[in-house]
């Protein structure tokens, strides 16, 4: 069973590692709570190429944010990364000390993150200038003056009007959308290779969402960086991502190109997700069908497939075998399911 979906597309190991910018192998992160051990990320593997945009999609609590925080080693007690490798530029990042100089030289400089809540992600008592220039001074060793000029430039690039006036303002003087633009500027300021956007538009209105996503796409193209969009909304990644990973209960259940996922979804969860999204190109009377049931409790998970109680396609095998491993369908399309849902296209009447 291949550990990194899609990586056999390349003929040799060498070619593989040359193209892959980041390779995450069997990442496991757990949280020790009063009620038990939460396996937030339970064996997640994926990769990112240079100048690629990928989507990481799943509902709240599926572990997508935790997986990205783990890559940056931003997990603190009661959480702990308990296994796996994060290979970046030939080195396993998880082997670095969390607050050591090597990891610090990665954060912000090589891999940067944009967070979900623009209202609270900026320090209220520091000016935008201070928060932008500290990175430039630290990672790019710029002088105060040069850093300030670059910061103004960056603000202009993300579409903040009168940047040279507004740079000395405080975060509370900006709207949510503007703050997120500042976060984007901050993330790209040191020319990172990868930008991770964790639900970057969830807290904003739809119009702003569209603008910001378009902005992010432009910026990463301009800076020649790769982008990971973490979201619960498949619609968001449809337009921008080249490849998509679907996560459920701490694991990846389906992976493939955007065309694969939207055109030929195989995992029952993916199918369910797609049924929830309204589309312009479908018949008027189609109902939006929510996925029945609730997300599982991640403590004491049974060994079978976690989606079982909510699945409309289950067969006997599903309750007897452990969580299905990812198997390759074709090309870069992988799925972790025992059922050939394509054959069961029409929803069985009995379920």
């Amino acid at each position, binding site marked *: 069973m291949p550990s990194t979906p899609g990586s056999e597309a390349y003929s040799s190991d060498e070619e593989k590692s040359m193209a892959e910018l980041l390779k995450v192998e069997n990442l496991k992160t757990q949280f020790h709570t009063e009620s038990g051990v939460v396996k937030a990320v339970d064996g997640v593997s994926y990769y990112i190429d240079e100048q690629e945009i990928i989507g990481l999609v799943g509902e709240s609590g599926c572990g997508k944010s935790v997986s990205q925080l783990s890559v940056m080693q*931003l997990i603190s007690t009661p959480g702990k990364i308990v296994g796996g490798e994060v290979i970046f530029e030939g080195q396993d990042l998880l082997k670095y000390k969390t607050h050591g100089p090597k990891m*610090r030289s*990665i954060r*912000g400089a090589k891999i940067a993150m944009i*967070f979900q*809540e623009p209202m609270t992600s900026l*320090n209220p008592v520091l000016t935008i200038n201070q928060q932008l220039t500290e*990175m430039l001074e630290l990672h790019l060793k710029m002088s105060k003056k040069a850093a300030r000029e670059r910061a103004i430039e960056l603000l202009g690039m993300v579409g903040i009007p009168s940047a040279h006036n507004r740079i000395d303002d*405080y975060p509370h003087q900006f709207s949510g959308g503007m703050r997120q633009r500042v976060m984007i500027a901050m993330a790209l300021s040191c020319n990172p290779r990868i930008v991770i956007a964790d639900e970057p538009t969830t807290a904003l209105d739809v119009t702003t969402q569209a603008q910001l996503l378009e902005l992010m796409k432009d910026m990463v193209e301009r800076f020649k960086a790769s982008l990971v969009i973490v979201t619960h909304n498949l619609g968001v990644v449809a337009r921008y991502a080249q490849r998509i990973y679907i996560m459920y209960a701490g694991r990846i259940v389906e992976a493939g190109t955007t065309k694969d996922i939207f055109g030929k979804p195989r995992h029952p969860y993916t199918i369910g997700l797609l049924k929830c999204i309204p589309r312009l190109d479908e018949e008027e009377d189609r109902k939006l069908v929510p996925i029945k049931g609730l997300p599982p409790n991640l403590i004491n998970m049974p060994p079978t497939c976690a989606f079982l109680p909510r699945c409309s396609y289950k067969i006997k095998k599903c309750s007897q075998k452990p969580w299905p491993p990812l198997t390759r369908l074709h090309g870069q399309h992988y799925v972790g399911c025992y059922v050939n849902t394509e054959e069961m296209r029409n929803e069985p009447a009995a379920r």
Partner: protein
Amino acid sequence: MTTYIIRRLLQALVVLILVTLIVFFVMRLLPGDPILIYVAQTAELERMPQEEIDELRAEFGLDKPIMVQYANWVAGIFRGDFGTSIFYREDVGTLMRDRFPPTIHIGLLALIVGAVFGVLAGMVAAVRRGKWLDKIVTPLTYVGLTIPVFLLGILLIYAFGVKLGWLPISGYTSPLDDFWLSTRQVIMPVFCLAVFGLAANARQMRSSMLEVTRQDYIRTAWSKGLRERVVVMRHMLKNSLIPVITLMGVSVSIILGGTFLVETVFAIPGVGRLMVSSIFGQDYVVVQAITLIFAVIILFVNLIVDISYAWLDPRIRYG
């Protein structure tokens, strides 16, 4: 922010007036003839012939309506005239000038020590949460908040004065006269008064910082690859200090309250001891004056604290 300051100033004015009213009328609660406030004990009063009493009444304006008396008293305060002490037969203003310096010397030192070391201790405890430093600091703050100030004084005197003989157990010398002796005499009283502030500031700072640590913007700071020292000093500190500022007002109140006890235990010739002896000596002029002065000090400190708070937080300053 200017509207905020103006509103706050007006508020302070109203409170100031109320404070003077309270001080004035509390003294008038004394049973019997209000002339008691200005003259010596009742026994003396009984021996005085009626005309003399009437003369005194007129002299002190006691024949006028009560609100006029109040106005006269306030007017007197503005002129710096707090009356004449019955016991010392001295102008109260002069008395204050002699007695205030030791109180201010010790009180101010206690305030500074409590603030600086308290904040430092709290910061260390928060940054090294759960480690041994935190495990020592946190319980100690409990002790600091609960130990009676006079017991602490006596304990210190017992330990450092009597048993070890390191420090003098009473008395006060001005630092201008003999700096070294003054410092040795002042160490224990300052510590006693500072203990509450130390404990309160340490607790507040610790809890502020722990609260701040959980904020999203700190996670952003870490994600930028900044060093721990930078994250703590530049990103956490200012945010954590803001609630600590408000403690300054409480600290001053506690210190002024504790000064009565500390000056009694350590026999320091300051305003605290003067107050206590005046209460027992029924020297109500002095009692009234000291009460007013203390209350006004606290009023001003609270005013300054509120305004500083608004100035420090950019969200309020640049509204």
